[in-house]
């Protein structure tokens, strides 16, 4: 017997579109792309980045923008304020502040970056070895222990005091400053790298990779290093300003680069005496540059840290 097929059209079976998988709707980005995206969204960090680029650019072309060199003296033009010929004024020996400021940029930035890079190289090596060796048999553990003790003890030393002492002993100059700064500065990086590797080694994905048959060098390169990379870069962006700060501090104590070579630190130091006489531009420009550099690196480093932190992901 035929069934009465009177079905309301609304109650006919639904013709379904293939349900778009919510997860596949958003294209998946690689890890690096995600980090960069997040960083770019952080306006403050981008401001820092722009400032850094600007400072580096000016340190290269700045001294060429004016006809004076950083050491040309013109005693007739002592302590002149900002003018058309001297965009940043002159100092007490008639030297053009604009040229000196950007020349000083070269010095300060170079010291900062080179010292930080040496810190990085030594620190990553030492920390990497310690982290790698830990847990790899008795010999490995011993190596790790020794390095760890060394790091602990060195970490307890008052950094700046040691740097000052070194500078008192050595002849002040750009090279010696860099050596003094990196002699104890690497400890922080080593600690971080070692800690990071130890943490990663214990994580389950390493175990998973091993179970899947990956051997150790492969694990090291594909998993450990990329994850440590972030920490290293962040630490780098913080050691550069601290090195620049340390150099300024040394200059303040008279242990910085020697005349006529000028860093921002020495220029600030020279200018301290004249705050009472009102020649504000002598202090203002190097001080501004130091502050901008510290600000820019710190803010960029913060942004980088936030971007790399998986917990803060949306």
């Amino acid at each position, binding site marked *: 017997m035929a069934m009465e097929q009177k079905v309301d059209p609304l109650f006919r079976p639904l013709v379904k579109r293939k349900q778009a998988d919510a997860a596949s709707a958003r294209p998946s980005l690689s890890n690096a792309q995600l980090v960069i995206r997040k960083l770019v969204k952080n306006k403050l960090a981008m401001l820092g980045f722009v400032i850094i680029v600007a400072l580096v650019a000016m340190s290269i072309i700045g001294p060429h923008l004016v006809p004076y060199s950083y050491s040309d003296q013109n005693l007739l033009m002592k302590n002149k304020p900002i003018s058309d010929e001297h965009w940043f004024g002159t100092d007490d020996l008639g030297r053009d502040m604009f040229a000196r400021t950007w020349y000083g940029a070269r010095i300060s930035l170079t010291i900062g970056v080179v010292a930080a890079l040496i810190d990085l190289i030594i620190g990553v090596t030492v920390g990497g070895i310690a982290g790698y060796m830990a847990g790899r048999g008795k010999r490995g553990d011993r190596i790790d222990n020794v390095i760890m003790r060394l790091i*602990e*003890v060195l970490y*307890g*030393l*008052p*950094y*700046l*005091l*040691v740097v*000052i*002492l*070194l500078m*008192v*002993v050595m002849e002040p100059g750009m090279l010696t400053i860099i050596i003094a700064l990196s002699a104890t500065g690497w400890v922080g990086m080593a600690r971080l790298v070692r800690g990071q590797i130890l943490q990663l080694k214990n994580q389950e994905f390493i175990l998973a990779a091993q179970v899947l048959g990956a051997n150790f060098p492969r694990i090291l390169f594909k998993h450990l290093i990329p994850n440590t990379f972030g920490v290293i870069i962040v630490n780098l962006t913080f050691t550069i300003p601290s090195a620049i*700060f340390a150099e*300024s*501090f040394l200059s*303040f*104590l*008279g*242990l910085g680069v020697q005349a006529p070579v000028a860093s921002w630190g020495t220029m*600030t*130091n020279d200018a*301290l005496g004249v*705050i*009472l006489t009102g020649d504000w531009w002598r*202090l203002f420009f190097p*001080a501004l540059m*130091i*502050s*901008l550099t*510290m*600000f820019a690196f*710190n*803010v960029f480093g913060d942004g980088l840290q936030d971007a790399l932190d998986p917990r803060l992901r949306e």
Partner: protein
Amino acid sequence: MFHYLAKRVLMMLLTLWIIVTLTFLLMHAIPGDPFASDSDQLPEQIRANLRAKYHLDEPLPIQYVIYLKNLMMLDLGPSIKSDTRGVNDMIADGFGASALLGMQAVAIALVFGIFFGIVAALNRGNWIDYGAMALAVLGVAIPSFIMAPLLINYFAIKWPIFPVATWGTWLHTVLPSLALAFGPLAIITRYMRASMIEVMNQNYIRTAEAKGIPTWAVVVKHGIRNAILPVVTFLGPLIASLITGTFVVEKIFAIPGIGKYFVDGIFNRDYPVILGTTVFYSSILIVTIFLIDVAYTLIDPRIKLSNKEG
């Protein structure tokens, strides 16, 4: 507990010893005779006497032992440049001013840093938060040797509320303490804010809220108590940066503290002074850090100092 303490004391002594030895070696690594560089031409005989007096003609290891022996008796030796005072005297003289300056700065940095950090964390995203963070960034960007002249310029010259420099009354201490505290204050604010934010996101805050206790009680009793712990770990580096900060501030403000002697000693290449004050500072720093570490393990109930409990 004992085991842990003993180990820490040992580490502490080891670090101290390294500093002392390092400083000693560095000071004596400089070739030549500290008296030879004097502009006054000293007669040979006097120079020989001086050298003998300071044991400078003895072999290095003997000088080292003498030095260590003196250290044990807390004698930091005489100053080369000053006839009337030894290093101990200088430290005693300057201690009052430096200590006062330092402690005021610590107090300012801690009190305001923690306060701003909490306020910023609780007002996340609005202008209070941005204001506090801006302050924090400034504090990191502007070193004390720039902050100091800035403060002098605006608050002592342009607007003569405070004296320009030197020491004397309570008013004299304000600007230097501020200059010294500014950087550490900024860092503490950041730390506290981050810590507070993390704590307030924890599940036990939800539990506390679910009890129906008022918001301020949740924040104070559950939030702040837990958020403040990580800040304690920062106190060590804080004291360190405070110490180096005093050199700058004492010099700029012409304050008669230990830092001034230290800086002068560097300038004059007065090695015993440099050596002595470095040892002094390092000792204070290392002991303070040790005390802070011990205090921290006592405050946080989760930390067991030893395996006493099984």
